[in-house]
């Protein structure tokens, strides 16, 4: 579904999760929150971020908050997240048990 001019997201069935395209900054913050608010309730949630060029610190913090709130028995798998997100995770959340980065 189109989420404004700069961020698009589509459900993916296999693996279960979202496929996103675009950028996450101040202008797409609400749309990104909406994506994270509609994550499937599966034990493993996959986010294909290979087509997301940039995510700012707030965008990464929203993802971390979603992962922290999800419960210890669930796993968030980030596929090819943008370098900016990895830099922010390294600075502020070097190890979140429920987040796994797949490259």
């Amino acid at each position, binding site marked *: 579904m189109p989420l404004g001019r700069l961020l698009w997201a589509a459900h993916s069935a296999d693996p279960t999760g979202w496929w996103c395209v675009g950028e996450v900054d*101040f*202008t797409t913050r609400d749309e990104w929150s909406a994506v994270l608010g509609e994550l499937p309730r599966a034990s493993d949630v996959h986010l294909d971020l290979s087509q997301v060029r*940039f995510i700012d610190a707030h965008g990464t913090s929203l993802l971390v908050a979603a992962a922290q709130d999800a419960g210890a028995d669930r796993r968030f798998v980030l596929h090819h997240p943008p370098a*900016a997100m990895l*830099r*922010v995770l390294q600075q502020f959340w070097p190890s979140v048990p429920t987040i796994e980065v797949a490259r």
Partner: protein
Amino acid sequence: MLATVTADDRTEPFEHPALFYRDADEYLAGTLAFIYEGLVRDEPVAVSVPTANLELIRAALGASADAVRLMDMTVEGRNPGRIIPGVLRAFTDTHPGKRVRIVGEPIWADRSETEYPACAQHEALINAAFAGREVSILCPYNTTELPAHMVADAHATHPILIDHSGRNHSGAYDPDSIVASYNRPLPAPPADAMVLEFEANTLTRVRHTAMAYARDIGMSEYRLVDAELIIAETITNSVVHGGGRGTLSLWTRDGQLCFQVDDAGHITNPLAGRLPAPPRVPGGRGLLLVNQLAELVRIHTGQQGTVLHIRQALI
């Protein structure tokens, strides 16, 4: 006017003495006494000092060096705004419940005139950042090499002064005056700067234009990632906290990309961007991230607005 310190008047658990040294012998005498006292008391000890002094301490410690966290301040603390969150709190926070001691030398002779005001403000803000905490931070000052005004500022930023004659209270201790007096207007961007006006609906386009500029001047892929975050966080802060709009200027000098962001905001908390954010709270990390990634952050802020001057290595 110096008064002798006795053990009885120590009610504040945080200690922040300056160590004035004239040569390597005085440097080692002062720093090693501080380090060994910590090791004997089983306190975690870190040393973050310029490269040559780090090697002096490492060699003098010998086998004891393994028990001390040794960091190069010219790397870890290149940006003075990074030292509190990225060096001092980063170390103290890994030892909760224990008294911690750190040798921190943020000011050395090669610090530029552009960097120095941020260094002095950093030294002043350590006092507010660590008040009430079980921490000792010893700050060496090379009185042979540093200009007199920097040594004079150290009297205002440190409540205790140590030199070859002993340990004394500073009669000139007044850290708030240093924070205020170095909150100075910054030079206007040069005539060759790229100047971009932005507001909420042009934030993304302005970031893209700025990144095209950074790529064109040959910034490495690694630095481009940092630069894009720095630009995104600063211009977003202007839109959210700085009156909804601002001006981003970019230019290059001395192998660095220089950014300047002007907006109508007023940063009233001088510790903004210097304290670690609670891990479970989203947001509120913009200026902290900028401090962590940049080589220099200077701020001039007041009722008239805020100017951020940021420098980042190209390679």
